[in-house]
């Protein structure tokens, strides 16, 4: 498993994709921060920053995951992993953690944004809320990356993988928006159960919600599990 992880990490930074991801991620987070917090000049609007950050994941995370399996298929190196003594689970996990690690590198850099919040913004920022939101962002990112891993396993085109991942992420983020136009109460509550926006909103206003955390982690596991099944199925087809 370490071998696959190391190779993935390496390939992110040998090819331009790792740097492109980091550049876009940092630029977007900087813009979001200046628009939401700096212009408002109030630390109270920091929850907006986190919400927009989460939305920006729709665009930036697919960049990170699109190549994971799609490129193996295109280069026909997939067979190498399948025929080597590595279990499918650890192969999928290695790729997931590689993408997550690159994300975390970028994410840690964006924490710089929060420095001016403490020094220059009016009002005292609520550290508890900020920590909760940051944790929420990381968990959501993990869930989205897992979705990207799954979509990448379904196609050999990186473009299709990226677009497909965006679609899934959009669904999870914005599903509650459509809720207003749905009459059925049952359908509405089912859809809002899926909504990441609703669950994340609780974290950004400082309510530490265990069920939200369990939800993000389970979504993550479900996607990774499905990825393993996709490969299992191919073997048994």
């Amino acid at each position, binding site marked *: 498993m370490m*071998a*696959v992880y190391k190779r993935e990490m390496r*390939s992110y930074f040998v090819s331009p994709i790792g740097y492109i991801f980091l550049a876009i991620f940092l630029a977007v987070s900087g813009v979001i921060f200046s628009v939401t917090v700096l212009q408002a000049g109030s630390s109270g609007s920091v929850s907006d920053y986190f919400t927009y950050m989460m939305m920006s994941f729709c665009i930036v995370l697919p960049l990170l995951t699109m190549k994971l399996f799609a490129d193996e298929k295109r*280069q*026909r190196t997939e067979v*190498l992993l399948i*025929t*080597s*003594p590595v279990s499918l689970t650890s192969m999928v996990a290695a790729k997931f953690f590689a993408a997550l690690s690159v994300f975390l590198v970028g994410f840690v850099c964006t924490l710089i944004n929060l420095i001016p919040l403490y020094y220059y913004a009016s009002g005292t920022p609520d550290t508890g809320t900020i920590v909760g939101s940051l944790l929420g962002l990381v968990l959501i990112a993990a869930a989205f990356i897992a979705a990207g891993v799954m979509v990448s396993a379904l196609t050999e085109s990186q473009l299709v993988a990226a677009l497909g991942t965006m679609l899934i992420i959009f669904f999870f983020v914005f599903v509650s928006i459509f809720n207003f136009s749905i009459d059925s109460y049952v359908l509405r509550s089912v859809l809002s159960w899926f909504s990441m926006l609703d669950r994340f909103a609780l974290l950004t206003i400082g309510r530490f919600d265990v069920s939200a955390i369990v939800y993000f982690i389970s979504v993550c596991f479900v996607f990774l599990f499905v990825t393993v099944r996709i490969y299992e199925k191919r073997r048994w087809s």
Partner: protein
Amino acid sequence: MIEIKNLVKRYGEKTAVDNISLSISDGEIVGFLGPNGAGKTTTMSMLTGSLSCTSGSITVNGVDVFDDPMEVKKQIGYLPEFPPLYLEMTVKEYLNFIYDLKECTQDRQAHIAEICERVRLDDVFNRVIRNLSKGYRQRVGIAQALIGNPKVIIFDEPTVGLDPKQIIEIRTLIKELGKSHTVILSTHILPEVQMVCDRIVIINKGKIVADELTENIDKVIVGARQIQIKACGPEKEMLAALRSLNGIRYAETVGEREMSSYAMLVESEPGVDMRKTIFGVFARNGWPIIGMEAVGLNLEEIFISVVDESGGDDTRKKQKKGGR
């Protein structure tokens, strides 16, 4: 070493591998020969544990592939049809990655160095794979299969797309590997198996249609042997002499060449080698033989005849009618 028993693989309605049984012993070089779509790659995928079977079993060194794929994968080195190379890595990085991937226990430096020397990769050890020629890439693929020193090495069409010099190098290398490993080679290039393998297994439509040692492979051909002779001398007398020989079924002139030499097609009774006798007769009569070659003894024709036989009577009849 490898036991394949009643192996069947179905994709829906289509049967890709149809009840194959095969036993391969230690140190053998076995060639899987068959037209495209015969089931060679499917069989190999099952052997390497990347594909399940519908029924049947494969054991490698006593371990069942489907029960304990991890253990079997450790014992098999596999070079697929398209070498699985990460083009952005250098040869060194790539082989180190494979070493880690296979969780090898040998001394890393020495093991990789030894393999590179064996497949002659030393010159390009620090170069990026993307920049290597097809021949070198193929060798990197072979090196990859050798890492961890697996007992069984499987090559799927290892010489496709190489130039003649590279083909010879790769074949020599495979032959050499056969001294210390069990090698399975799949190909549709017929002289390749003849040159490299100890044993030839011909597969068609998912079934084994012939399984013979290389030197006996021509026995599976049904019917008579034909020889083409080119000799200088009087046409009619030469033909008469040929026809009078015991064991010759048929002789005819097929063409006149320069220097008043004639090409004659001679068919002998099944299983009789007439070449020495014919030489003797012609020599006594003072008719120099300037060429003599066996027709219908090469693998191509054996192959077609065997495959046709299993493919039903229609094609065989057609071929007979069409003649040569």
